[in-house]
C-alpha cells in the first residue's frame, strides 16, 4: 500500500497553483506581444508559438503528469509529434516544389 503512493507520484497542491499561475501569465504575455505585433514583425508569429510551446510543456509535464510518468508513456506520446513533424516536412516539400515548378497549383 505504501509503495503504491511512491509509484503514483502526488504533485503538491502548491505546484499545481504555480503551474496554473504560469499559464495565466504566459497567456497575458501572448496578448501583450499581440498588442505590439507591428514592432515585432516578422517575429510576431514565432513569438506567439514559442509562448504556446512553453505553455504546452507546462500542461504536459505537470497537469498530464508526464514528468513523473513511465518512460514508455513519454515515448508513446513523443512518437505522435515525431510523425506529425514528418507529415509537415513531406507535405510542404511536395507542395512547394510544385509551386516553384509553376505547374499544378
Amino acid at each position, binding site marked *: *500500500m505504501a509503495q*503504491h*503512493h511512491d*509509484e*503514483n507520484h*502526488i*504533485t503538491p*497542491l502548491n505546484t*499545481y*497553483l504555480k*503551474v*496554473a499561475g504560469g*499559464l*495565466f501569465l504566459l*497567456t497575458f504575455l*501572448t*496578448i501583450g506581444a*499581440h498588442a505590439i*505585433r507591428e514592432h515585432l514583425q516578422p517575429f*510576431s*508569429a514565432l513569438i*506567439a*508559438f514559442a*509562448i*504556446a510551446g512553453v*505553455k*504546452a510543456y507546462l*500542461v*504536459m509535464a*505537470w*497537469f*498530464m*503528469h508526464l514528468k513523473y*510518468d*513511465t518512460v*514508455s*508513456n513519454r515515448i*508513446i*506520446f513523443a*512518437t*505522435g*509529434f515525431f*510523425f*506529425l513533424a514528418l*507529415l*509537415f516536412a513531406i*507535405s*510542404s516539400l511536395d*507542395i512547394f516544389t510544385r*509551386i516553384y515548378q509553376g505547374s499544378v*497549383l
Partner: protein
Amino acid sequence: MSTSRVVNGVNVASHYRDEKHQYASNKEGIWLFMVTEILMFGGLFVGYIIYHSMYPELFAEGASFLDWRLGFINTLVLIFSSLTMALGIYYNQISQPKKATWALAITLICAATFMVIKYFEYTHKFHIGIFPGAMLNLETLKEHGYNIQHPNLGLYFGFYFCMSGLHGIHVLIGMGLIAWVMIKNMKREFNANYYTPVEGVGIFWHIVDLIWIFLFPLLYLVG
C-alpha cells in the same frame, strides 16, 4: 467476461498481475489514444500552416473577422478548468472525495462557459453570412457592410470551422466524461488506490486544453 479479484481493495481483472499492473496498462492505453488525437488535429494544423503560407493575405482577411478578446477569455477559462481537473485527481489521491467532486463540478462549469462563448461566436458568423468553404455567402456579407477582398475567403473559414468545431466536439465529449466521473465520485467509487477513470478523463481534458493553446494564436492572433 474476465473474472476479477480484489487486490489492495481494487477490482483487478484476471489478466493483470496486480492493481499497479492494471493501472499502468490502462494508462498506456489512454496515451496511445492521445497519439491518435495529436495526429488528427495535427493533420489540420499542417494543412492550415501550408495554405497560410500560400495565401497569407486571404488568411489575414479571414482572421480579421475573429475577436481575439473572446478567444482570450476562452483560453483563461480552459486553463482554469485544466487546473480544477488536475485537482479532481489530486483530491482523490489524498482521499478527499468531496473536494474532488467540487473540483470536477467547477471543471464542468468552465467547459459549459467555453461552449456558450463559442456559440455566440458561431451564431454571429452565421448571421453575417460566414460559412465554411463554398457556403460562404458574399451577398449577405455585403449587406452587412463587409467589403471582401478575397472571394475565396471560405478557404480560411473551412479551416476555422473544422478546427474549432472539432475542438468544440471534444469539449462536449469531455463534459460528458467529466460528468460521468463526477457521478462515480459522488457514489464514492474512487479512493487513493483506485482513480484510473478520473486520471484518464483528466489526460483527455488536458489534451483539449493543449490543442486550444495552439489554436488560439493560430486562428485569432497570427492570421
